[in-house]
Structure formats: C-alpha cells, structure tokens
C-alpha cells in the first residue's frame, strides 16, 4: 500500500503534538513533521505495519542525523595541549557551578589536575558555593574580590595552572540573560582575553521553547562549542536536547542527571533514544 497525504496527515499531526509534549520546540517539531512527510509520501507500506510504526522508524533516522555532531570530552582532554581552559556560560540558575564541580570530579577520577576559576564575581554566595565544592574535592580555587573583572580572574587562573602544571581550568561565570547587553559584552571580553579551548553552554533539559532562543543568541553573540543539558532527572522528556542541537549544530557533551558529583552522563545517541523515546 502506498502512503498518501490523507493517511499521513493525521498521524503526522498526532506525532508533532507528541514531540511538543516532549519539549521539542514548535519550529523544530514543525520542521521534523515536514521532513517526515517529504520522506514518507508515496512510500510503500507493508500489510501489517501501521503508519505510526513507519513514522517512528523514519523519526529514528532523523534523530540520528540531528545528533551527527559529537564531542568526545575525554578524548578532547587527552589530546589538547595543557593547561586547557573550559569556560561555562548560560542563563541564570541552569546548573553551571554544579556542573563544573561534577566535571572536576570526573577529571580527578581520570588522574587530571583541575583548578576552578571563580568567574562569577557578582552573585551573592557564588564564590562560597564554588569554594565549598573545591573543598569537598580537594582542589584549588582562584578568586579575586567581589566585583572583580571575571576576565582577569580567569586569566589569573590560567597563569596559575601554567605555573603549577595543572591540566584543566574550569571557569565559572555568572548566569546572565542574553537580553542584557552589558553582560553579553562582558562575556565576549572573557572569551577574547582568555581564548578558551571550549566554551560550554549549560542549559536545563526542562526548559521549553526558550532553550532554542537562548542557545542561538549565545551562539551568535559569543560562540559556543558544546552543550550540557542539566536536570534531566526531573523527568525531562528530552525534546529540548533535540531542538537545541537541531538549531546550533553543536554537540551535547553531557547530561546532568542529578545533584551529586556522579550525576554526569556522557552523551550517547542510544542513551538518548532509550531515555526519551523509550
């Protein structure tokens, strides 16, 4: 039986709704639905297979294509000249500071020496939060006084890493809205002065359509090399990951799956498919 427009239309609409209920951003869900239609119209359907099954199978292929951008974090750390500078950026409250601590632990477990740069010189308790993590992990923090220039703090941390032969500098920055011109300028300066090896955009897997807007804004205005999506354990459905990678074409390095140091999951397509499409 050949798939025609009328047999596809309802199924694709239902499928698009399902995608949106899983936090796939509207424009991405619409685009996926269009691509599915383009690929399936006129295709032959075997007796016994439902249209839904065919759509799901075609969708799996699309997911494969979307997640073609990859970054093997461990390999990157191994092959890059030390000291490596990783700068973590994103809007407020997404999990940057906690994620830095998790990555520091991972590096320690792999016998690397990380040091932390307290680049959030603005928010109440930011330095204390980072220091507490550093203390628990037994690693060094470089910080200046409250209100200092974050670019200078990070610069200082890299110089320190070089002198002490530390492997990786994990630079924390304050959360900021992409709508705040001064803060975006500050971020550009941080990157210009320090030329990070990776700029990592940390956002929450539980954010909706705005995740795409902010990823694109940060990518356009500062440039990002990879994503980390946190709070997956809050029952996130995974659509945010799909939308964000679809738009930025940058890889997801990790998922944050909880508040403990071990709650950092390296991105894998199979894990994504199992986790979110069951």
């Amino acid at each position, binding site marked *: 039986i050949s798939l025609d427009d009328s047999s596809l239309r309802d199924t694709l609409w239902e499928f698009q709704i399902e995608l949106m209920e899983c*936090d796939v951003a509207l424009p991405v869900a619409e685009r996926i639905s269009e691509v599915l239609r383009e690929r399936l119209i006129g295709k032959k359907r075997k007796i016994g297979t439902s249209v839904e099954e065919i759509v799901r199978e075609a969708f799996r292929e699309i997911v494969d294509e979307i997640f073609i951008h990859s970054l093997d974090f461990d390999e990157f750390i191994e092959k890059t000249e030390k000291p490596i500078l990783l700068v973590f950026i994103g809007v407020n409250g997404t999990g940057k500071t906690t994620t830095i601590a998790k990555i520091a632990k991972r590096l320690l477990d792999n016998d690397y020496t990380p040091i932390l740069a307290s680049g959030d010189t603005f928010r*109440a308790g930011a330095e*204390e*939060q980072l220091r507490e993590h550093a203390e628990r992990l037994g690693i060094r923090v470089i910080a200046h006084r409250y209100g200092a220039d974050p670019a200078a703090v990070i610069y200082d941390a890299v110089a320190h890493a070089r002198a002490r032969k530390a492997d990786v500098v994990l630079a924390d920055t304050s959360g900021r*809205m*992409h709508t705040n011109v001064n803060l975006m300028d500050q971020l550009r300066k941080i990157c210009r002065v320090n030329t990070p090896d990776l700029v990592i955009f940390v956002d929450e897997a539980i954010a909706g*359509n705005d995740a795409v807007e902010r990823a694109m804004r940060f990518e356009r205005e500062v440039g990002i090399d990879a994503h980390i999506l946190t*709070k997956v354990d*809050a029952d996130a459905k995974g*659509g945010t990951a799909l939308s964000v990678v679809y738009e930025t074409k940058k890889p997801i390095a990790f998922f944050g799956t909880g508040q403990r140091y071990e709650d950092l999951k390296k991105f894998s397509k199979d894990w994504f498919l199992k986790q979110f499409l069951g």
Partner: protein
Amino acid sequence: KLGKSLREAIRKLARSGRVDEAVVNEVVRDIQRALLQSDVNVKQVMELSKRIKERALKEEPLKGMTAREHVLRVIYQELVNLIGKPAQIELKPQKILMVGLQGSGKTTTTAKLARYFQKRGLRTAVICADNFRPGAYEQLKQLAETHGIPFYGEKNEKNAVKIVKNALENMKEYEVKIIDTAGRHALEEELIEELKNINKVVNPDHKFLVLDAAIGQLAKEQAEAFHKAVGITGIIVTKLDGTAKGGGALSAISVTGAPVAFVGTGERIDDLERFDPDSFISRLLG
C-alpha cells in the same frame, strides 16, 4: 498592547469583514502557534483553540462590534479566564514558604519579597531552610545583610525541620517570616517528604511556588506535585527579563487554583513586580 502574531491574525480577520470559518481557523491557528511557542501546555492550547473557535463562530458579536473585534474579545476573554486575577497581597503578619524546582529563583525572590514587605512597614525576616546546596546559607545571608533584612539560618544543622523550628522560636518578634527551601522536583520522594514536614512545622499562611518563566511542558506535573505536597496558595514567575514567555504558569494556575502574585524581572532586590494579567497575556501572544 497586542503581540505581533495576534495583530497579524486580527489583520486577516479585518480583511474578511465577517466571522467566516476559514478565516477564524487561520486566526486560531496563529494564536495556537504563539501559545505553543510560549510554552503553554499542549493539551491546554488545543482545548483553548477549540473553545475560541466555537465561541467565535457560534456567538453573536455584541451590538456595534465588528467581526474582528468579536474574535479578539473571545480570545482575550478565554485567556483572562485561564490566567485569573493577580493574588491579593495582604500587608499583615504572616509566614510564607517558598518552594520550587532547582534553580528557579527561590533564594533571590525570598530576599526580594522580604524587601517588598519591609518597604511597606512590616518587620520582616528571612529564614534559610536549605541545608543542602553548597553556599545556600551564605547566599541568603549576604542578600539579607546587604539590604538590612534580619536573617536566621544554621550553617551546619543536618535537619531542615529542626532549623525551621528553631527559626520560628528565634524570630517571634518579626511580623513577616519568609522561609527559603532547597530546590526539589516531583521525583525526589525524600525531598518532597521533607517539604511536607517543613510545611507541618511552619504551618504557613502562604506557600508560593517559584516558577522559572522558561519551564517547558513539565510545568504541569511539577506544579501538581508541589500542590499535592503542601497546597500552593500563590505563584511567582521569575526571569521574565529574558525572552521566555512564562506559558508554564498557565498550567500551574490551572492545577493549583492559585493566582500569580509577583513576577521576577531581574537579579536586583527591586526586580519584583506585582503580576499584571494584561501585560502577561500580550507577552504570551508574542
């Protein structure tokens, strides 16, 4: 005060001159897309679209109203019904419990809210009941000290319920007491249990759900969990100074029955505004 997509939709109606089904369908589809992009719950958007369409086609436009005014009125009314009125903020002695997901803005909003009551003549104190997050005690303490707000916390106490018991003992002289709690989500059973225990001990007059404007479809299930655990009496939507529209708040309103009290529009102490349904709706319709 209309968002751009609504203006576009209404322009299409204006050209048609009468309430014709094809044009209404097109207008409803535009509204639907705007609401979905604003993170309103998908099922809720579909139900709303159906109601708007039925009313637009079946109801008689009021005397003297054009077709476009009629459809506009229906859309606006349906949204106003969903969003409800802003919460009444009583300037009297009360205990307020702040709850919500990790990173939603509870600690910052606790300080903002304390400043709000303080400016209006009420002796207000903030209490740190977050003994889990590194630096949580210092964060609230610094905010409080910077703005002359009395603070209570116990840096090394392992039991959050004990902290609030002691807090209420020690802060009796303060008329308004606002209790900041650690972030938690629906699947963290022990943390939800802890919250129920804190709630029992405090017996707050208000339980505010602090919700990030950017939250996606999860808003409904999370709001349900908090409502089931402690009974939400008010909602605060934060980070509206970004580009997020706060559509998740509509789910929170409908599952808790609670009104929106305030919105957070920045990181400073004064970046707290009373909720305004009209500007919220116009932002929602983008």
